[in-house]
């Protein structure tokens, strides 16, 4: 039961979710669908097999423009923002001086504007962080008048093509303008499921109509936050507050790729010293996949032990519908991060054997250019 006195935010699709049988739950200050009638397993598998439609409007869309916007973002992230070409998207991190992660985000460049998407639960923090570092001539707009839908899964390109969207030459981590039923949408070929797919930004006033149009395609299922979490878990994608936080170094979280070469060489980003030390030597603990044995899931917070010594902990745990087995993520001492290491997860006085596994647990199926 929601005990907070602050009313929950609602997205432009709130009535749409309720009308389609969603179970609504509070999430990061928003009233969001955790699942529809099909349930988490069904929605997860529908996404991997065909296409899933997710409302991700709770994430904040923030646009930065003007001279100095690149330099400002580079002062907060390890990303070579200057190297993000027009029409391109990069995964990035807001870092602190200790080398921890304040949030993860997407940065895209479209029409010369740097378009950011940040986590709902960190939006207030991130907007304040950006505002505190605004430099002269940089304009920041929080696009709360825009909705964001994710269409994920192998059939998602065909769904958009049936609506007249020409995807020729449009690949993973690109962004562009596309018209859907007369509405100018900003689409990125990206997502957080490990599948090919798209995130579609549109005026909030058009969201309900376009969501209904997308859902009218027989290939599309509605998918809630529950399956969004199981999909990203199998895909080994970190979630802030679990695999990432202010104390977790991006190298430990398996995010070496997010540290641009030019920025590493210049060592000019927040937390560069501790992060680059781990980049060179390896982090003391490393994020791994965990496959619980015997059918019982292990959950966030469970400790991981080897011969009675604590060697790590679980950061996300549940069930992987595509694996048809329990699945988890966690940090373990680097020497134990080799796939196939047998550990014991300690849950409420119970021991569950787990085996470490390489990430992703389910292969990514991005469509690269």
């Amino acid at each position, binding site marked *: 039961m929601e005990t907070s006195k602050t009313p929950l935010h609602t997205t432009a699709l709130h009535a749409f979710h309720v009308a389609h049988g969603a179970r609504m739950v509070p999430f990061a200050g928003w009233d969001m669908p955790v699942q529809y009638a099909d349930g*988490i397993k*069904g929605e997860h598998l529908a996404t991997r097999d065909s296409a899933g439609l997710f409302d991700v409007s709770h994430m904040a869309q923030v646009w930065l423009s003007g001279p100095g916007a690149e330099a400002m973002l580079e002062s907060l992230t390890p990303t070579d923002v200057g190297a993000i070409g027009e029409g391109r998207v990069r995964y990035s991190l807001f870092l602190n001086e200790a080398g921890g992660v304040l949030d993860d985000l997407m940065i895209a460049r479209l029409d010369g504007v740097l378009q950011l998407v940040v986590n709902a639960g960190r939006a207030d923090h991130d907007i304040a962080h950006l505002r505190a570092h605004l430099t002269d001539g940089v304009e920041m707009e929080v696009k709360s008048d825009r909705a964001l839908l994710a269409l994920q899964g192998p059939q998602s390109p065909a769904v958009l093509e049936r609506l007249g969207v020409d995807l020729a030459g449009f690949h993973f981590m690109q962004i562009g303008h596309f018209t859907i039923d007369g509405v100018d949408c900003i689409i990125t070929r990206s997502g957080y499921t490990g599948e090919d797919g798209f995130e579609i930004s549109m005026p909030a006033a058009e969201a309900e109509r376009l969501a209904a149009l997308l859902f009218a395609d027989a290939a599309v299922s509605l998918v809630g936050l529950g399956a969004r*979490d199981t999909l990203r878990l199998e895909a080994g994608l970190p979630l802030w507050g679990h695999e990432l936080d202010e104390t977790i170094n991006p190298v430990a979280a398996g995010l070496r790729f997010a540290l641009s070469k030019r920025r590493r060489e210049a060592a000019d980003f927040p937390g560069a010293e501790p992060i680059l030390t781990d980049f060179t030597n390896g982090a003391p603990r490393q994020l791994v996949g965990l496959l619980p044995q015997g059918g019982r*899931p292990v959950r966030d917070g469970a400790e991981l032990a080897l011969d009675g010594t604590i060697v790590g902990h679980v950061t996300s745990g*549940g*069930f992987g*519908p595509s694996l048809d087995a*329990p699945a988890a993520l966690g940090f373990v001492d680097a020497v134990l991060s080799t796939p196939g290491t047998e550990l014991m997860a300690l*849950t409420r006085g119970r021991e569950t054997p787990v085996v470490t596994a390489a990430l992703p647990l389910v292969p990514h199926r991005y469509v690269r250019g």
Partner: protein
Amino acid sequence: MLRYTTDHEWINLEGDTGKVGISPHAIEQLGDIVFVELPEAGTSVARGDSVAVFESVKAASDIYSPAGGEITEVNTALLDDLTAITPERAHDCWLFKIRVESAGDLDELMDESAYNAMIG
């Protein structure tokens, strides 16, 4: 005699032995059930003891005994197909039978209409 707890267990008492399960509402709220741990026959439990665990995709839920007594039989057939545990079959999906020591334990539980009023 069918009674419900505030934690959504049911007990159906015939003579001194009751079948115990969880309510249709509880099954619906759990969502996809992915693992169930049942107690062992022969175990003595007190009213309110955690006696079973239901794991859904998202969370683990403890099941508490509605009464004290000895667990006499466990429905291990339930574990063969967890997808068969549905709200419609809630009263067929008994978890265990318990020989109730004190029928007075059931006095504090709700009958079906009181339970339905509680869950709204």
